[in-house]
């Protein structure tokens, strides 16, 4: 049994989720290889070679792999795919974009967003926005899997010393080309790996309120900012802040839901948080069903009070 992990990176740095993906791969119990497909990504391969428990680091380095286009990554992985029993990717927009293409080319089912490994061929995955957990068995010879990062604790980024083997990149697929990228600058922790998340919903009422109420609280807690779909649709927060079935899945130590009613689609994205705090003026809001600590009241009074209380507490 040999397992291939496809590393997510931006040619400069390895994305942290790769460490969770390697952790899931190790749980399968075979030899783990990690592929870095990119352009001028030697430094990323060097980082991967340091990961504890990786048996081999593969590097495919070519201009057509620069932007992580699914067509080109798929073609390159396909050339080595049949040497593996499992191919594992993170269930991020990167992994979700590539994995099904690979599976279809190999004529195997793909298993999406797994949260547990029962056996090398049996996995758990949430369905219906996390309202049910399906245990599924793959009958295919190669299992192409995406893993939910929050369900697997990351492996250590160092302690390993693996040889780097260069493999050939497949020729560029001519029917698609990269035009541009518009990335949001982060001055806060990254949402999916943040220890604390402060998240706002429609109850905030405006973009200005979102910033003025949540910003200081997030600063105090060193937290990432999140949002419900309603808040994103109202334009209070950017799209990539969205937490839920159609946004990001998070599981921080502390999740503070402010002015969020708790629709099933939102809860699907945060209910595995260790501690959930809800602040909402409606005592009947469904968010209180999943909150460990619920506070009924006006967020415009309570949030500044909370910021103050944290200030006093942190000074102690």
């Amino acid at each position, binding site marked *: 049994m040999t397992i291939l992990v496809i590393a997510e990176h931006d040619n400069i740095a390895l994305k942290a989720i790769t460490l969770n993906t390697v952790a899931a791969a190790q749980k399968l119990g075979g030899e783990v290889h990690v592929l870095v497909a990119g352009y001028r990504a030697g430094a990323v391969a060097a980082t991967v070679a340091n990961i504890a428990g990786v048996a081999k680091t593969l590097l495919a380095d070519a201009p057509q792999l620069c932007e992580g286009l699914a067509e080109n990554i798929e073609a390159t992985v396909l050339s080595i795919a049949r040497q593996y029993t499992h191919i594992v990717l993170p269930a991020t927009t*990167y992994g979700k974009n590539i994995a*099904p293409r690979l599976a279809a080319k190999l004529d195997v*089912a793909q298993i*999406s967003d797994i949260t547990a490994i029962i056996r090398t061929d049996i996995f758990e995955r949430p369905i*219906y926005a996390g309202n049910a*957990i399906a*245990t599924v068995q*793959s009958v295919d010879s190669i299992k192409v899997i995406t893993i939910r990062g929050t369900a697997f604790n990351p492996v250590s980024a160092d302690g390993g010393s693996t040889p780097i083997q260069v493999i050939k990149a497949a020729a560029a697929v001519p029917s698609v080309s990269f035009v541009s990228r518009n990335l949001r600058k982060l001055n806060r922790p990254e949402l999916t790996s943040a220890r604390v998340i402060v998240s706002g919903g429609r109850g905030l009422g405006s973009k200005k309120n979102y910033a003025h109420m949540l910003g200081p609280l997030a600063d105090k807690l060193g937290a990432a900012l999140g949002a419900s779909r309603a808040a994103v649709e109202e334009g209070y927060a950017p799209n990539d802040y969205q937490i839920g079935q159609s946004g990001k899945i998070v599981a921080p130590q502390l999740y503070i839901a402010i002015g969020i009613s708790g629709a099933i689609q939102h809860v699907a994205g945060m209910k595995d948080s260790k501690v959930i705090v809800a602040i909402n003026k409606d005592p009947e809001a469904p968010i209180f069903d999943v909150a460990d600590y619920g506070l009924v009241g006006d967020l415009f009074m309570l949030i500044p009070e909370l910021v103050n209380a944290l200030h006093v*507490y942190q000074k102690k």
Partner: protein
Amino acid sequence: MKVLVSVKRVVDHNVQVRVKSDGTGVDIKNVKMSMNPFDEIAVEEAVRLKESGMTREIVVVSAGVLACQETLRTALAIGADRAILIETQEELQPLAVAKLLNVLITRERPQLVILGKQAIDDDSNQTGQMLAALAGWSQATFASKVTVEAGFATVTREVDDGTETLLLKLPAVVTTDLRLNEPRYITLPNIIKAKKKPLERVTPQTLGVKVEPRLKTLKVAEPHKRSMGIKIPDISTLVEKLRSEAKVL
């Protein structure tokens, strides 16, 4: 240009599903079914392309039981021109649907196939990518903006930390994200008109596709329940609880 859109009949997104006590699945008897929300966005986008003169015909496809006809009629009422039902009682998984659609696109020769990014029942997020791979086409998943011009599509995609834009040579596959558009309400006259639009019925057998499931569902269970939380009276109690009880501060 012809556009093909695939739509799925799923449990309505407002329904809180219940897991069956025997662990075989979720109980969807007597539950409201609707078009998958991402597929509504896909149909809307196709109709907008037609309204802007970029598309001549919109063919909408659904695979599943006979009742999927209702979903197709909804798509016709939004503005699709004709419908194809691939009728089967079998459980259809993404790979099977992708193969069925792949056969249809060799027959229909659309320049663009639009699908939802995922269905809200199985939450797989696979079919569009699989279809693109099988057809040997390029793909733009999680689309939030699509423009079509002179045999090319420019698509802006939602990615984890922002957006990116790709240029695809047609034919291609696009899957829709929430931000792509706001689907229109269906009007009564359009519902009536939709009843007269053609709806063809085929089967996986007539398309020559084997659809048996490749993933066996062994069990479906309730998710781990969170222990009952408490309501607390004020901020100082909250801070105290987070500190001493939850130990997260």
